[in-house]
């Protein structure tokens, strides 16, 4: 959780995992974690059967011993978070402190809500969201918790039920569980009224914690094949996008709720969630305080049943996982065979280098997770922004220009998007003409998507606002902007290429090239904005001078301007690209 990098499993401390007895001396042991009896117990329990001398298969490690081993292992892993390079240590400590602060604030806020009319609805919803978070977390941060990958324990002589107890315990240790505990405690404090309710509250907190943790474990175990495969890693790369969208949703949600009486809006959702574990357990606390003991008993029973079900399913998939062959030894299912290359819409692309480059660019937009995230962000936000602005009242058709701007940005760092595979392109570029065709193909692929998309967004915005008069000028401006960004993007791609790390969902620049990336994007956007100035100035002048009848002219002028400026940009970028092929390759191969 603290380091959600997909590369995590390759960290040096990783070999400690299958050998808890070795991990022991490696980590400095403060007084809290190990009892003096621990190292011998752990050593015998895990190493004995493997050594084979004298130990004629006594019962494999008992539950209590194993729980201790795993708890100590988890604590060592957490401590090892501090034993990294200073930069990562700082990030680690900062994230711990931030999460801690956030948890305390949540706790205080929830306690302050005690007695609020809609407190029950809020805490029930909150618990539901929390459980959902735990359920999806392992899918997006597969490297987050190294003890989540049960396949690392296959070689140890462990029985599933002992393992379950131990894994569950180790899952309860960490920053995430601490945060959950703060939230759960705050939730029950907010709704517990009376001694009986307080007693149930303790039970509810325990149940909530266990359900959340077991849910995460179950999802991780059931999907471990997916998570350790290439598709799983691709999914993890999209997590940045997931977070961005999630943050927007939370932002809009809190905005809605902070309106007067907004918390009441939660009631319908809460009515459903109060029967969904683990939110049911939290609501049981309220029910007890309310005097409806029957409801509370049913809700608690439901949660216990759900917990049992989750654990049962988890144990089952764990047994299957640990007794069946590893995914690397299973032949990947044969993909459906496709006919030859010139199938489908690809046929309509122009022949020669142009069409070849376009096809590759479009395929990458769909298949490469990093490129896909970039395109999805541009397309999604370009569409969302006008809609959100209209929804919030102060919309203008001009907000549709965002779609053109964001798509135009995809032209930046074209070769960085290739990563070191750029050598294949470099090997086929001999003349500025080749470089021109290469860049033009990439620009055309963008235009192929951007042109209809921008037109649709502008039409949509005009329709939403009923301002059809603005349609031609906004579309003309959008096109001019797209052209300016394509032109500057081509130049920036040639002049300021930088590597995009391929293995992280968050980083888009490798260390040491941040300056280059800033120059490329910020400088490019500034110049792009300047290049738009003539069309923008003309639009403003037509408005100010009251020539509203001539505003439609912006559309053809903008289109022609976009065409011309893109052409000039590509022409200027081509010789620079052809001259700098080795330098570009070196710059984009660092990721």
């Amino acid at each position, binding site marked *: 959780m603290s380091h959600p990098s997909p590369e995590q499993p390759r960290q040096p401390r990783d070999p400690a995992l299958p050998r808890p007895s070795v991990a022991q001396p490696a980590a400095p042991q403060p007084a809290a974690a190990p009892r003096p009896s621990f190292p011998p117990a752990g050593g015998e329990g895990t190493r004995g059967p493997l050594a084979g001398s004298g130990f004629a298969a006594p019962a494999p490690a008992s539950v209590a011993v194993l729980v201790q081993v795993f708890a100590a292992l988890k604590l060592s892993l957490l401590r090892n978070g501090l034993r990294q390079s200073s930069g990562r240590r700082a990030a680690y400590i900062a994230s711990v402190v931030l999460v801690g602060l956030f948890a305390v604030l949540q706790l205080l806020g929830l306690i302050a809500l005690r007695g609020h009319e809609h407190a029950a609805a809020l805490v029930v919803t909150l618990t539901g969201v929390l459980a959902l978070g735990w359920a999806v977390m392992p899918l997006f941060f597969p490297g987050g918790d190294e003890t989540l990958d049960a396949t690392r324990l296959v070689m140890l002589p462990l029985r599933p039920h002992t393992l379950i107890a131990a894994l569950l315990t180790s899952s309860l240790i960490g920053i995430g569980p601490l945060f959950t505990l703060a939230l759960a405690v705050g939730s029950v404090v907010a709704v517990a009224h009376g001694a009986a309710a307080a007693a149930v509250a303790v039970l509810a907190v325990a149940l909530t914690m266990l359900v959340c943790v077991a849910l995460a474990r179950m999802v991780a175990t059931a999907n471990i094949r997916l998570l350790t495969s290439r598709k799983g890693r691709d999914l993890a790369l999209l997590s940045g996008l997931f977070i961005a969208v999630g943050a927007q949703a939370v932002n809009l949600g809190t905005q809605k709720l902070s309106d007067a009486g907004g918390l009441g809006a939660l009631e319908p959702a809460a009515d459903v969630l109060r029967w969904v574990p683990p939110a049911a357990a939290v609501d049981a606390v309220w029910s007890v305080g309310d005097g409806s003991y029957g409801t509370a008993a049913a809700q608690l029973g439901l949660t216990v049943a759900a917990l049992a079900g989750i654990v049962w399913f988890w144990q089952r998939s764990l047994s299957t996982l640990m007794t069946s062959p590893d995914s690397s030894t299973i032949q990947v299912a044969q993909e459906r065979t496709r006919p030859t290359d010139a199938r489908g819409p690809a046929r309509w692309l122009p022949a020669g280098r142009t069409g070849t480059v376009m096809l590759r660019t479009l395929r990458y937009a769909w*298949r490469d997770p990093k490129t896909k995230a970039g395109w999805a962000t541009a397309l999604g936000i370009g569409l969302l922004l006008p809609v959100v602005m209209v929804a919030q009242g102060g919309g203008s058709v001009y907000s549709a220009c965002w779609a053109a701007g964001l798509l135009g940005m995809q032209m930046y760092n074209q070769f960085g998007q290739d990563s070191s595979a750029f*050598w294949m392109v470099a090997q086929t570029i001999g003349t500025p003409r080749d470089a021109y065709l290469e860049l033009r193909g990439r620009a055309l692929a963008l235009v192929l998507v951007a042109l209809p998309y921008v037109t649709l967004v502008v039409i949509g915005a005009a329709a939403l606002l009923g301002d059809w008069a603005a349609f031609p000028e906004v579309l003309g401006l959008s096109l001019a902007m797209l052209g300016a960004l394509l032109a500057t993007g081509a130049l920036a791609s040639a002049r300021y290429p930088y590597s995009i790390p391929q293995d992280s969902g968050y980083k888009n620049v490798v260390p040491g090239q941040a300056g280059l990336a800033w120059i490329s994007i910020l400088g490019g956007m500034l110049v792009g904005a300047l290049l738009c100035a003539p069309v923008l100035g003309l639009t403003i002048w037509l408005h100010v001078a009251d020539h509203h009848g001539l505003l439609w002219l912006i559309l053809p002028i903008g289109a022609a301007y976009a065409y011309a400026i893109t052409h000039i940009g590509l022409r200027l970028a081509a010789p620079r690209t052809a001259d700098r092929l080795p330098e570009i390759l*070196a710059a984009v191969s660092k990721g």
Partner: protein
Amino acid sequence: MASEAAHTSSGAAKQPLTDTTAVTGGTAATGAPTGAEADGRQRPAPGGAGAERPPAVRVSGLWKRFGEQVAVAGIDLELPAGQFVGLVGPNGAGKTTTLSMITGLLRPDLGQVEIAGHDVWRDPVAVKARIGVLPEGLRLFERLSGRELLAYTGRLRGLDGDEVDSRATQLLGVLDLAGAQHKLVVDYSTGMRKKIGLAAALLHNPEVLFLDEPFEGVDPVSAQTIRGVLERYTASGATVVFSSHVMELVESLCDWVAVMAGATIRAHGPLAEVRGAAPTLQDAFLELVGANRQQGHDLDWLGGAR
């Protein structure tokens, strides 16, 4: 590329250049480069075919420095045409850097490279059409399937689309990739990647083929396949230049070898000449790079009384 250079052993002292050249001593590259070249030219090639042809690759005064590290310290070399040429050397010797500079993927600090009579940096069009490259440590366009990758590469090289597809089909068949042709390259094994890379490098029927560690991490079956294709390719008069540190392989495959260590060429010439009196190329190589010192007594406890 840079990483191999970083491991180069020669760059430790403040002025490593003189050291390495001094070590090289009387062997080929340093003393009189022109003389050595002329020497190499006049040797009759064992294959017979290459004797009269101009060299496939002519390298003179090639230098590359990464910061403090000298990765390639003044290489002069002529690789004969129509032969299997092996560039051997320990890890970090500068093989990858040298091949990258010869193939135009890395700009040298100093020096000239000519391939089939064309300067790599002044006449890239003529050179790029004549060479095929399989670099080490650089990606392919991995989100394309094997067939798509070949179709892309061939069309990018300006070949006719139908011709590309028919060549791709044949290459995929010969290299045992037909079953995986619709799988994405990212899901390929190391051997399959090397094979699809080789197919992409051969697609335009180059005159000279440069392969950086083509057998590294490749299983014996794939290695044999690659070998078969390369042998057929050189039989037609084409040149294959490949780097490796597996001496047995080089010895069994190459007609002509260049030994590289510490950023310089320590010896070059027909295989038999470089091997000299040593029983195997391995022994000759260890002698050349000065790595065959006795060290048994350091570990005399090993295997002793327990």
